């Protein structure tokens, strides 16, 4: 049955006006409700030297004490430690993962310091890609481990970026959203801070490092994002200890010469960082990670493996070939696995058989043994019986003999007495 299919072409889209309230303006709410019930994921990577204040800053940002012990400086290499937490605020559940670079900047030779970081980020993309390419997949409740934001901690030298910083950031800028921050900013004086910031930004620009741009395309956030961008990199101070200021307790660091208040915008940019990272752009960070960084990774990965897009009319033969090759390889693997399993099965069956035979043999032996013992016992009993009979016979014989003897003796006695009598009688004549 031939069918005429009419497809909507873009020119056909008419703008219609509604004559009443339809109700689909609740659509964003419906969408948001769904996401709220599922919970959100947010993953932050903290890159910085040991002791620069990464853990303290995380504690301060999220208003809580994540359990971690400070790292030592003797790590042989850089490794990444990831910790997950579930935070809940009103009805929003957030699965927060904080990834720390342990040992960054401690080695004497830091050539390969960036490698574990890049590998970790790639590994998260890879995991997502694998899930996406599965035949039976469940993307809608996949726990997203891709890094959404990378806080790069710059040491407060006051001069410029270290070469390690430049190299690492250059390697990371196409894979993750980088937000550079100046750590321990209370060691820099106000006037030096301004110079430091502009030096850093110009170095980043001249080296072509692409840091995360706060989005300015939507009117409601464009203004705040634009004003905040001017203050990059944010100079932050972290503290989880509270100090009494005026009549309130506030997070601060107490020095003999004064108190540095974390949430005071004159003292440091902590509030700005929190605004930008969490309260304004968290969703945008997640989206950029998915639509830009992940797509780039995916594209590179698939191209690397030799796949090209088909154009609508013909398929390049290399595609067919690679597909066939992959398929054969896969089938081969399958067959091998099948064989292995069969082998194992056969082996197991044999083992079991052997075991059973052993058991059977043992049983037989036991049975034989029992039979033999039984025979022996029987024989013994027989023997004893015979013995007894013999004894009884003997006894009877003896008894008979005794009786005979007795009777003989009696007779003899009688004869003797008769003889005696006769003899007596004879002597009387």
């Amino acid at each position, binding site marked *: 049955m031939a069918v005429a*299919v009419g*497809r909507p072409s873009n020119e056909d889209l008419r703008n219609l006006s509604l004559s009443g309230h*339809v*109700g689909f*303006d609740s659509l964003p709410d419906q969408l948001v409700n769904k996401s709220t019930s599922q919970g959100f994921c947010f993953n932050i990577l903290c890159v910085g030297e040991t002791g620069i204040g990464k853990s303290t800053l995380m504690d301060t940002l999220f208003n809580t004490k994540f359990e971690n012990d400070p790292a030592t400086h003797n790590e042989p290499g850089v490794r990444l430690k990831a910790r997950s937490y579930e935070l809940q605020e009103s009805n929003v559940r957030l699965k927060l993962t904080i990834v720390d670079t342990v040992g960054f900047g401690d080695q004497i030779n830091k050539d390969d310091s960036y490698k574990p970081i890049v590998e970790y980020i790639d590994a998260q993309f890879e995991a997502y890609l694998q899930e996406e390419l599965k035949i*039976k997949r469940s993307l809608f409740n996949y726990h997203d481990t891709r890094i959404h934001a990378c806080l790069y901690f710059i040491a407060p030298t006051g001069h410029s970026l270290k070469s390690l910083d430049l190299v690492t950031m250059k390697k990371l800028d196409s894979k993750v959203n980088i937000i550079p921050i100046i750590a321990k900013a209370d060691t820099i004086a106000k006037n030096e801070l301004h110079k430091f910031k502009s030096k850093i930004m110009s170095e980043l620009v001249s080296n072509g490092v692409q840091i995360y741009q706060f989005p300015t395309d939507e009117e409601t956030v464009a203004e705040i994002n634009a004003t905040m961008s001017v203050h990059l990199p944010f100079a932050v101070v972290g503290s989880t200890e509270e100090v009494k200021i005026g009549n309130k307790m506030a997070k601060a660091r107490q020095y003999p010469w004064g108190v540095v208040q974390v949430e005071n915008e004159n003292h440091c940019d902590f509030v700005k960082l929190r605004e930008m990272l969490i309260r304004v752009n968290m969703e945008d960070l997640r989206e950029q990670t998915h*639509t830009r960084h992940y797509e780039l990774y995916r*594209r590179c990965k698939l191209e690397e493996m030799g796949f090209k897009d088909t154009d609508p009319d013909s398929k390049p033969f290399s595609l067919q070939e690679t597909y066939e090759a992959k398929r054969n390889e*896969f089938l081969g693997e399958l067959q091998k696995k099948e064989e292995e399993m069969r*082998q194992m099965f056969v082996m197991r069956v044999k083992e079991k058989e052997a075991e059973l035979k052993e058991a059977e043999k043992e049983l037989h032996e036991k049975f034989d043994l029992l039979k033999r013992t039984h025979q022996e016992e029987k024989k013994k009993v027989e023997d004893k019986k015979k013995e007894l009979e013999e004894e009884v016979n003997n006894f009877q014989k003896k008894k008979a003999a005794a009786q005979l003897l007795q009777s003989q003796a009696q007779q003899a006695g009688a004869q003797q007495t008769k003889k005696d009598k006769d003899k007596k009688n004879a002597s009387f004549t």
Partner: protein
Amino acid sequence: MSKGLPETRTDAAMSELVPEPRPKPAVPMKPVSINSNLLGYIGIDTIIEQMRKKTMKTGFDFNIMVVGQSGLGKSTLVNTLFKSQVSRKASSWNREEKIPKTVEIKAIGHVIEEGGVKMKLTVIDTPGFGDQINNENCWEPIEKYINEQYEKFLKEEVNIARKKRIPDTRVHCCLYFISPTGHSLRPLDLEFMKHLSKVVNIIPVIAKADTMTLEEKSEFKQRVRKELEVNGIEFYPQKEFDEDLEDKTENDKIRQESMPFAVVGSDKEYQVNGKRVLGRKTPWGIIEVENLNHCEFALLRDFVIRTHLQDLKEVTHNIHYETYRAKRLNDNGGLPPGEGLLGTVLPPVPATPCPTAE
């Protein structure tokens, strides 16, 4: 030792295609819940607002298909639902025009905006369904269309360089119009719903409900529900996709009491009690479309648009589309389900060629 050890294949020729062992991703520790330790406000809940703003900016797609015999009021109902002239009615159809010999699929797109939310609505009409003398397999073109949309989406998704937002033409909702005979479902209805409930969300709707009295209506609805159940037809909201107890109780109520919705459509307004309402004027009274005592149109509208629109899209995406995709990738590779298959690109679509209307 064990005989029959398989020969290991030497894939030297294919070694460059064999991916090197992938690094095992560092799995984060099991999440520690530290709800109780939160001191002070962080601002995590602002993500809801952020998300809402973003979705409003990108806009939404919604594709609704209407299926039913001619004259059941499909176009009128869609116009009433979206309060605008979305479908051009076939009122100009007269006897001289040919009845379409086959089932046609007509998709027309519109952009409507309300409260800052922009929606690209596509109404897919199926003129000719059930109108021939011999209606065998008339659901096939519809099933084919639906699968074609899934195929389109799948092709886009599998591309190496993907679009930022893949245009979604998949059918999210199919309203099936049941003739208000008052007896039971027709064999055509059953056949159609049986075939299509597995690929798309079907919402059965009793059309022209103003021909039935209240008792007739409730009896008919009960009978239809029974028949659907007996035939194993899972209409939306499907029982198996209820996520939690709350959803289940809410959906159970809809499934067992309200559905199928008995609706009346109209795009004409009349004055009733001083208000202007949409209705149908008859010698014996005015049937108000949005009056719950008269018909269940308001229920249908709330159900489809105000509460379950997003869910319709999600079920289509997460379940129907995934089923299609899994089947597609399975059939053509002959590979067992559930296996990770990195790097498979779609082999050519088998069987019937589809006419490309580029």
